[in-house]
């Protein structure tokens, strides 16, 4: 534990000064730290705020005389306050901070920020205070409300007073509080509002004043409306993000399964190869281009595509070419190929997971409203999957190769007699399907773990989507993937993650019984199974 030691003589001289407070921040006893925080907060002013903010984000450094500095992420320190000479005199240390101190700091900082000249800062501070009941701050907030002009800040301040005012003895104050809640509803207030609308055991209403009850029901319906919309939108987002992952992993499979009727059990491993290609690109960037390491993902996309396509071509040439038209043998052979690929990767990279870090521009999220955070990595995966689908659609419908692929899918013999080299088309198609699987691997590397068994966890889902959506059909795969994703995410809050998967599987089985060709079946005169 890092503590701060100074002689009692110096202590007396520094007592009741800025430096003494700063030194106390470095104490090993958290109670002393909290007391120092409160003393600094009482001083107020921009220096106090800067000091406490530095303490909160662990960039604060103090030396033995009580001079405070903030560590910059680019290196070096910046002085805080009037008494910090540059350069800092060693030894300097960083105060130890734990959750207890953080809780005290956050409230104190929010209160301090309420006096900031910037209205956005004041609004954020007021919203922070409004999130939980804080009786001790109520008088301060009331004072602020009197002089506050900004409408957003006023609303947030009124909301933080609502915690205390719903219990007030004066009914008009209660009504005002409930109307403030109705104005900016939040799930946090639901228990308090429901309590007002509840009945005692003798079926008598807890709240006698009818006007208060009316205000309370207004607040409750506002909260319920917000909750419904938040649930809807967040489930939609989660469903879409799961759907986009399913789409990426099954797009390649629909191409190869659809065209060549090849049950490719090594498809999951192609995903895994794409993910490992991303890892290799990341390592290369870290080694040779460390300043731009965050952009490795952009280079990883083509790298993964080609890596997986090459592996796919090798598999097609060496194994699948000889098993044309024999689905059982292909299944067994590709399963064997998948084992070989897993073992090769284990030999090259080790049996454990490898770390693929999210670049900074993909980390975090923004809170759109009340508890729903749009995470950047998931949003990026959704956009990426749409881009990949458009790319595949473009190739299939606007290029010569795509035309040939579609022809061979519909009727191989007829296409052959039209002069299309079906074996060459097979090779290109398998390569493309494998490449798209590689792109799926890039997305998976950003969302979960990258290990040799990555593919095994997704192969079943990929086949599920392909079979559900209709084989060889882009629209079917899209509908199947998004549908499954949204259905899973609707089921999960209700029955849990484990049971949700089972429920979805049962539903798919039932659906396939009634409609074996899937959602969008290919129409054609000689579509063999």
């Amino acid at each position, binding site marked *: 534990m890092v503590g701060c030691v100074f002689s009692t003589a110096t202590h007396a001289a520094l007592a009741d000064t800025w430096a003494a407070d700063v030194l106390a921040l470095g104490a090993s006893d958290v109670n002393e730290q909290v007391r120092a925080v409160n003393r600094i907060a009482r001083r107020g002013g921009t220096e106090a705020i800067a000091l406490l903010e530095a303490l909160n984000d662990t960039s604060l450094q103090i030396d033995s005389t009580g001079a405070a500095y903030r560590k910059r992420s680019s290196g070096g320190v910046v002085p805080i306050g009037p008494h910090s000479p540059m350069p800092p005199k060693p030894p300097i240390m960083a105060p130890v901070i734990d959750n207890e101190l953080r809780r005290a700091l956050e409230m104190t900082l929010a209160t301090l920020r309420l006096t900031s000249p910037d209205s956005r800062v004041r609004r954020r501070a007021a919203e922070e205070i409004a999130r939980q009941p804080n009786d001790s701050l109520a008088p301060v907030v009331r004072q602020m409300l009197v002089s506050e002009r900004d409408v957003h800040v006023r609303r947030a301040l009124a909301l933080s007073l609502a915690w205390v005012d719903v219990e007030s003895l004066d009914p008009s104050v209660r009504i005002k509080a409930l109307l403030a809640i109705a104005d900016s509803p939040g799930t*946090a207030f639901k228990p308090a509002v429901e309590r007002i609308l509840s009945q005692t055991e003798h079926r008598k209403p807890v709240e006698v004043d009818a006007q208060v009850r009316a205000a309370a029901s207004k607040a409750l319906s506002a909260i319920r409306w917000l909750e419904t919309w938040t649930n809807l939108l967040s489930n939609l987002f989660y469903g879409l993000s799961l759907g986009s992952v399913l789409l990426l992993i099954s797009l390649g499979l629909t191409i190869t399964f659809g065209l060549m009727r090849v049950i490719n059990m090594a498809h999951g491993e192609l995903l895994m190869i794409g993910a490992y290609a991303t890892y290799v690109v990341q390592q290369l960037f870290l080694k040779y281009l460390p300043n731009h390491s965050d952009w490795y993902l952009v280079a990883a996309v083509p790298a993964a595509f080609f890596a997986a396509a090459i592996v796919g071509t090798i598999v097609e040439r060496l194994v699948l070419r000889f098993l044309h038209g024999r689905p059982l043998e292909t299944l067994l052979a590709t399963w064997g190929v998948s084992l070989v690929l897993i073992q090769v990767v284990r030999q090259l990279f080790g*049996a454990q*997971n490898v770390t693929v870090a999210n670049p900074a521009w993909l980390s975090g999220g923004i809170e759109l409203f009340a508890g729903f*955070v749009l*995470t950047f990595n998931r949003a990026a995966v959704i956009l990426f999957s749409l881009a990949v689908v458009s790319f595949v659609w473009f190739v299939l419908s606007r290029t010569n190769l795509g035309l040939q692929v579609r022809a061979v899918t519909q009727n191989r013999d007829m296409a052959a007699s039209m002069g299309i080299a079906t074996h060459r088309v097979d090779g290109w198609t398998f390569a493309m399907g494998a490449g798209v699987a590689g792109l799926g691997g890039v997305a998976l590397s950003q*969302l979960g*773990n990258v*290990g040799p068994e990555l593919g095994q966890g997704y192969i079943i889902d990929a086949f599920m989507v392909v079979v559900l959506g209709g084989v060889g059909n882009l629209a079917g795969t899209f509908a199947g993937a998004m549908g499954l994703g949204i259905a899973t995410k609707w089921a999960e809050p209700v029955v849990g*993650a484990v049971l949700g998967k089972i429920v979805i599987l049962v539903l798919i089985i039932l659906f396939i019984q009634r409609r074996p060709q899937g959602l969008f079946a290919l129409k054609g005169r000689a579509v063999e199974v």
Partner: protein
Amino acid sequence: MHRRKANTRFWIVGLAACACKGPAESQTQTAASTPPEPAAAAPAVAKNETGPIRVGILHSLSGTMAISETSLKDVALMTIDKINAAGGVLKRKLEPVVVDPASNWPLFAEKARELIQKEQVAVVFGCWTSVSRKSVLPVFEELNGLLFYPVQYEGEESSYNVFYTGAAPNQQAIPAVEYLMSSKGGAAKRWVLLGTDYVYPRTTNKILRYFLKSKGVPDDGIMEKYTPFGHSDYQTIVSDIKKFAAGARTAVVSTINGDSNVPFYKELANQGLKASDIPVVAFSVGEEELRGIDTKPLVGHLAAWNYFMSIDTPENRQFIAEFKAYAKAKNLPDADKRVTNDPMEATYVGIQMWAHAVEQAGTTEVNAVRQAVGYQVMRSPSGFNMALDGKNHHLHKPVYIGEIKADGQFQVVWKTEGPIRAQPWSPYVPDSAKKIADWSYPWVCGNCTEPKFKLEFPLTDTNNNP
């Protein structure tokens, strides 16, 4: 052509049948459920009394648990090297036999049997998940083997053939929840119990429910959620946690195991769940699991263990130096960034205690060593004299609660004065509170309510359960 096709089909079906037979065989070996009374001195397989002593290491080196278990194999090999360098045991060298059960629970049982019967090991150090331990338990009890289990677990067990060097719930889970309930820990009123779906989290959460109920937490103040092994989509769960926590101080108790922790913590960070708001205390996340994650957004979240790498004692400094030197010498991947954690310390302590017991007993024979292990006391890297309790087969351990720091280490925020005794049968669960684990006379059982043998004059105090 027709016949060739039929022949090929026959061949394929036959191959498939052979492939399916493998797992079915191992299924029959794991049929046992509750730990039975020990086999009356099952005849030990004839062991070599000269030459190297073979020691089995049964940890997953691939699969979802490899992230946690590989380092246990490494520290076991390091400890064995250390013992050999000091002359070995009974003047014989220790020879490690490493197998990889690949996070496959039935395979654990198969490999355990292989270690004891085919490889003739004197002892096995292994297992992490409780399901792997439950799978191998019938094998050890049938073949009278000895297993040292180094990982924190859910209790409700005390086998004649197992020594538990990991924490029981009263040495980890209960103190962690008590800390979060206290004002220092945030005075949590509502609780989210989140875990992987298998025996350890389910049982631990059952115990915690009874404990929370005894502390006055209502049923609707507890939310329990489970995810399968290897799950990676935690969006809905984290969002549900935020909804559940709105308006009241909430804490999350996480028993998620394996590499699922990585996407879970990533989602926590991305959705902005602050530790000062909704602290998450994990029981299966240590320095090793944090090595693969960007820990800056996780600062302030907690873990409860009996050892942290950041504990500053001369014994720990030596332990860490030894392991880092070993990693460098053996060219382990990422050798300079390797860390030590609680199960590694438990493995380190367990192997040395077993070695001391063999010296004391003068033989590697299981029945003799088992009695000697109960006498062992050793100074652990955490700086305490740890004793292995011969009565309930558990290690006395101190409890530490630490907050994650930006560098992936833990900052201790609470600890016990010294080691505390394990309670394998939780006093909070009504059924378990009656049971006693005491392998000494007159009880001689791991889960009974009555002693096996009757004393002429019964003891005045039942000094078996604290």
